[in-house]
């Protein structure tokens, strides 16, 4: 590393200030206040670290990392390494300076006339309960220490750093999950240490043995390899099947996640594979749900038909599929932003149709449709979340299977070509009309299936359940997961649908967190959490870190 110029020292200061400002923002909107009671680390019933505090730390940690990461490569000499520690500390110091300034300001004037969240409780959290003078000094020292620590971890060799970071990240995550799922009280220090060390050790061991394991597997006979594949999948499958044992509430959350996975898999085909930005996707979800409701609810007497869930399901799905085609035809010639705007309109129109007084005798209007029967399998009524989980799981498995097969098919390649360049695709012999309509139809099918299950889950549906926000949420799921990536849909739905449901205290901040998550993803990892190989290539070929 070369001697640093003045601007090299300004960068960490800026990063630090930025981290501090983000933390400040998080505090001022009230995120800290609502979550300071949710424990992560406890000792004798006292909270050592809460989610609220973690929320303040995270931006600072991330910005410190950003500050040191630029210089981390090639830090061989001792002076370089010390320089890096200083960079981190500097960054952390300035971050905490922002917070200290807030505390001071809060003492001098009453911030609460403008920022109602600038409460004494918050200041107490920020100063570690040590009062203004001492607390501020401790806060500054703490910030510098934290920054230094981040820099120190960055300096570790990859082999050790990854397991360590994973262990460190897993502890709060596991603590939050257990506290949300089982009304637990977070981890005590020994438990936290145990979880962290075990996770780190396992990762370390896995990273050491995995290459060898792969060689061994490659050396196996074909039948041996098949057996290996079966065993490799056994554990994940067992876990997925056992998930409802966690209880009614986690199952409820998982069912909601599943509904979004199903929709996400469909939208992923439309947007991710075929490149057609559809913002009215909720329309097909609504159609599936309403078709199910109209055909099965005893309230709907105008047509004289009363089907069971399973009898109505094919019709509900078919209704959505046809709607996908019918709504697809007028937008065949549109691309990009035009398509987005027109489909957005479609989504709203469908919702307004369901809401209209004109169709009230047929569709229930604003009163919605109630008394939708539950699905029955054999003699078991799927009347609670742990049972419904298996229904939605089956739906997701089928949809994922179809999506995977389609991706590698001739149709999948046609979608890919169309996404790249419609004219050239056409000149290669791809029938644009057919290819586009098939994308809309497949996407709508999955969404309709999701909607049908949704209707029977809730047993009553109302037009306001099918707001445009649902479309945006599904889009968020596939963006966060990774456009075009099938596992990404699952991860995205867990992150954007599952987490917020678990952490109920954040309910009112849901949209804010959505926005923040999307901005953060776009800045740091535009290819998504579980990127599709091709997109990763595309987004990172410039910086050569494929």
């Amino acid at each position, binding site marked *: 590393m070369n001697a640093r110029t003045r601007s090299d020292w300004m960068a960490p200061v800026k990063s630090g200030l930025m981290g501090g400002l983000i933390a400040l923002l998080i505090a001022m909107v009230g995120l800290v206040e609502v979550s300071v009671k949710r424990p992560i680390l406890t000792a004798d019933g006292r909270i050592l670290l809460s989610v609220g505090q973690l929320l303040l730390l995270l931006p600072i940690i991330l910005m410190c990392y950003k500050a040191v990461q630029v210089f981390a490569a090639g830090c061989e000499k001792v002076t370089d390494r010390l320089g890096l520690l200083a960079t981190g500390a500097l960054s952390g110091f300035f971050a905490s300076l922002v917070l200290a300034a807030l505390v001071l300001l809060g003492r001098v004037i009453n911030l609460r006339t403008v920022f109602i969240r600038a409460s004494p409780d918050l200041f107490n959290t920020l100063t570690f309960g040590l009062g203004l003078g001492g607390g501020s000094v401790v806060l500054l020292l703490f910030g510098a220490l934290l920054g230094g620590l981040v820099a120190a971890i960055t300096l570790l060799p990859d082999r050790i750093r990854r397991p360590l970071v994973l262990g460190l990240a897993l502890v709060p995550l596991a603590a939050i999950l257990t506290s949300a799922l089982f009304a637990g009280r977070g981890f005590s220090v020994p438990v936290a240490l145990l979880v962290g060390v075990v996770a780190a050790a396992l990762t370390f061991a896995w990273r050491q043995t995995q290459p060898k394991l792969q060689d061994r597997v490659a050396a196996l006979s074909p039948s041996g390899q098949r057996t290996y594949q079966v065993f490799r999948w056994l554990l994940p499958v067992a876990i997925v099947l056992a998930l409802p044992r966690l209880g009614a509430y986690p199952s409820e959350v998982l069912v909601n996640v599943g509904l979004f996975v199903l929709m996400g898999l469909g939208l992923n085909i439309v947007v991710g594979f075929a490149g057609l930005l559809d913002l009215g996707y909720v329309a097909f979800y609504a159609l599936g749900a309403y078709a199910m409701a109209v055909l099965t609810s005893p309230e709907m007497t105008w047509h004289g038909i009363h089907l069971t869930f399973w009898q109505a399901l094919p019709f509900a799905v078919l209704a959505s599929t046809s709607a996908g085609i019918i709504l697809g035809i007028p937008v065949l010639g549109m691309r990009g932003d035009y398509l987005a705007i027109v489909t957005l309109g479609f989504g709203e129109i469908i919702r307004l149709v369901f809401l209209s007084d004109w169709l009230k005798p047929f569709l229930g209007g604003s009163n919605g449709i109630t008394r939708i029967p539950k699905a029955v399998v054999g003699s078991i009524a799927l009347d609670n979340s742990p049972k419904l989980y298996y229904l939605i799981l089956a739906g997701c498995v089928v949809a994922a299977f179809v999506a995977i097969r389609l991706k590698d098919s001739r149709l999948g390649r046609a979608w890919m070509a169309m996404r*790249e360049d419609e*004219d*050239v695709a*056409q000149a*290669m012999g*791809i*029938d644009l009309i057919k290819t586009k309509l098939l994308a809309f139809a497949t996407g709508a099918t999955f969404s309709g299936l999701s909607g049908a299950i949704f209707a029977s889950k809730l047993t009553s549906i109302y037009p306001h359940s099918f707001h445009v926000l649902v479309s945006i949420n599904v889009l968020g799921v596939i963006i966060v997961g990774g456009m075009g990536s099938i596992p990404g849909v699952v991860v995205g739905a867990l992150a954007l649908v599952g987490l917020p449901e678990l952490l109920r205290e954040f309910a009112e901040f849901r949209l804010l967190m959505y926005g923040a998550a999307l901005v953060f993803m776009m800045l740091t990892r535009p290819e998504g959490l579980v990127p599709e190989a*091709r997109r990763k290539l*595309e987004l990172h070929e410039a910086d050569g870190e494929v």
Partner: protein
Amino acid sequence: MALLELQDIHTYYGAIHALKGISIHVDEGEIVTLIGANGAGKSTTLNTICGLQHPRSGSVTLKGESIQHLPAHEIVTRGVAQAPEGRRVFGRLNVTENLEMGAFVRVDKDGIKRDMERVFTLFPRLKERAKQVAGTLSGGEQQMLAIGRALMASPRLLLLDEPSMGLAPILVEAIFDTITEINAQGTTVLLVEQNALIALSVASRGYVMETGSIRLADTAEALRNNEMVRRVYLGET
């Protein structure tokens, strides 16, 4: 009978009258070139032939069958492939995938494989970069890929839109050698070019276009010696 014949073609972009009664023909086994200034309507002519644009009146016949009403994806199956202007390779797909895309309408696996080998023999540079993402290829390599991709459809008639655009002179020469070779192997070529000198040196016949009409039609030899062509397109004074 001509392989391809355009008779009194009128093509519009909305109110813009881009082709004002074009009549040209290309015989089996020929290289025919279409030269003309920017905006003369050369690309529009090619797009009209391969169905990306449809003429308002006039006829396009391929082996005596009129095709002007067919959609682009059906015209490909009849043996017409285009390497479009400005290369337009599938940027996120690698070289092999791009070539496979060119053979989208074909089902004969062996034939596809043979043609892939043929393209790699014609353009060894592409073989070296078979797994490289097309968007990262150099301009010349992308041009080779665009031509190779069109060849993968195993066309009777290959439409090339300005294959020399933006390439160094040495590469232009190499590309045109390959075009001659492709033609010698039995593919008829309709070549649109700005570089009239080199186009007229490989073609047997040529057409000169001006603002949507054919101004001159003659053998390449005669066009090279034509006073107006020399002045306007060969830049001689």
